[in-house]
């Protein structure tokens, strides 16, 4: 569904790259946490998928297409297959809940009948029954984020990207939001969520990809938010070999058949231990790909 192949993103030649030689793959229907400190490259990762930025090197495949090579006029079509949710909700303050969600359909030229039918359904999915006529400022933060989620999924995208969606919310409200995202994921949508929320990551036990200074330093199938300090990237590189050598992972499989396979979801989940916190199915580490080639 989403595959990064040796992706490097440099914003400014003088400073270190925002992403450096990142290789990773997310399958259809997965729920992936992207964790890491501020400045670790999470947002760049998301922006590359949306083609808000172009990779400086490497290829970014979304739904079988290399986004970095996509001509400008095809970008809208790409974005129709991706829903996005942000920390700051980004609702239109002068539009009602209904109108905010309907807006996403109107701008794609959807008919009035279809909008009237779909929007209430989606609002029910995110738990906003009966609040169609409220304005954003009349809602709590959690409710506003639900509206944003409804807007992101109303056009039924295959992928939902969430950039710290619980960043502005208290823990309890965050859990509600996570339940909504989980449900959306269960309906078949691939969800990629960038976060620093320890509790949520630890409770959900989903795949965790950790970024650090633009490199992937950890990729666990049912991971936790690591609370202990991670060794610096260079040290990690020295010890990385043992974890990656064992894995016959998606990295190789992916590079073999991806160019033809637009429906990555049918591929098997990478083998490897899923014991929480210990397993490293090291598809991610940059050195591994290079080493094998």
């Amino acid at each position, binding site marked *: 569904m989403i595959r990064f192949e040796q992706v490097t993103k440099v914003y400014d030649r003088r400073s270190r790259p925002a992403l450096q030689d990142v290789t990773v793959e997310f399958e259809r229907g997965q729920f992936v946490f992207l964790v890491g400190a501020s400045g670790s490259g999470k947002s760049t990762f998301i922006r590359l998928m*949306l083609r808000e930025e172009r990779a400086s090197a490497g290829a970014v495949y979304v739904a079988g297409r290399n986004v970095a090579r996509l001509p*400008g*006029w095809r*970008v*809208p*079509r*790409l*974005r*129709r*297959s*991706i*829903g*996005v949710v942000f920390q700051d909700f*980004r609702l*239109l303050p002068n539009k009602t809940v209904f109108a905010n969600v309907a*807006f*996403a359909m*109107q*701008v*794609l*030229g*959807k*008919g*009035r009948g279809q909008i009237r039918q779909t929007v209430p359904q989606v609002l029910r999915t995110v738990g906003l029954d009966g609040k169609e006529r409220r304005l954003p400022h009349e809602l709590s933060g959690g409710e506003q984020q639900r509206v944003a989620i409804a*807007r*992101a999924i109303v*056009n039924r995208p295959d992928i939902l990207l969430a950039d710290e969606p619980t960043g502005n919310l208290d823990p309890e409200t965050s859990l509600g939001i996570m339940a909504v995202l989980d449900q959306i994921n269960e309906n078949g949508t691939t969800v990629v969520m960038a976060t620093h929320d320890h509790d949520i990551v630890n409770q959900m036990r989903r795949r965790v990809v950790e970024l650090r200074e633009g490199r992937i330093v950890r990729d666990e199938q049912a991971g936790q938010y690591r609370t202990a300090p991670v060794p610096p990237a260079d040290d990690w590189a020295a010890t990385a070999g043992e974890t990656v050598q064992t894995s016959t992972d998606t990295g190789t499989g992916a590079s073999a058949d991806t160019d033809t396979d637009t429906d990555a979801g049918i591929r098997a989940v990478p083998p490897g231990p899923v014991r929480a916190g210990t397993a490293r199915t090291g598809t991610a580490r940059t050195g591994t790909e290079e080493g094998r080639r």
Partner: protein
Amino acid sequence: MRFAFILGETLSGIRRNLSMVVSVVLVTFISLTFVGAAGLLQLQINQMKGYWYDRVEVAIFLCTGTSTTASCATGPVTDGQREAVRHLLESPTAAPYVKSYEYESQDQALQIFQEQFKNSAMAGTVTAEQLPESFRVALVDPEQYEVVNELFSSMPGVELVSDQRQLLEQIFSLMNMASVIAVSVAGVMLVCAVLLIATTIRLSAFSRRRETGIMRLVGASKTMIQLPFLLEGVIAALLGAVLASGTSWAIAEFFIGDWLTRQYPGTGFIAGGDALMLVPLLLAVAVVLAAASSLLTLRRYLKV
């Protein structure tokens, strides 16, 4: 649905940005009115050329009892002298230069005079005897006035040969000058209009960046995102052009067609109907300029 939505977005953009849109309307209105005025002047020049060039080019005035020039020393023109002039006009010497001629008697001259000056007190005091009779000569080539002048000015009974076209040329060059000035003013004003449209679109895009940001993210097409802004600029400019067209028509109809025609009845003036020719031009200028400046601005300031 889709079109209705785009139009709705356009209208809400105009509502939010009303003062800027109004200023665009006014600036395009004024600048296009100058364009219209230049156009009217040109139309009027053409009209007068067509009207006058066929009629008067050279007038051969004959002596009256009150003439003071040397060639009229013998008093008013005699029948014989008049016939001599008419004869020469038809003779092989002059005929190659003469396209046609008309004789205007003193009574006819009085009629025309009274018609022309009917609003003035002079009309009642002038008598036919005070006005010269004349031959009005149209030349094959209007530039060959000198030949005719030489042939006739020394004839007895001829008071004066005058090239009326020269008089008209002066008027025309004056009018041409006026229309050049109008076009220059219009040019400067149009530059203002274009810059103002660009600024307006930029402000509008900025004030609606939240909406356009969401449009981008959900994958709205470039057209869907940009068209409302483009339409905003074009509609404002079109409104200005409509006002300018109305003003040009009003000037042609009421000032030129009505008032000036009454003041100078002998002259062929354009009327409101002729100004309608300018309307498509003004509308096209407005649309093209607004669309071009909006598009350039959008390309720079509205990420898609």
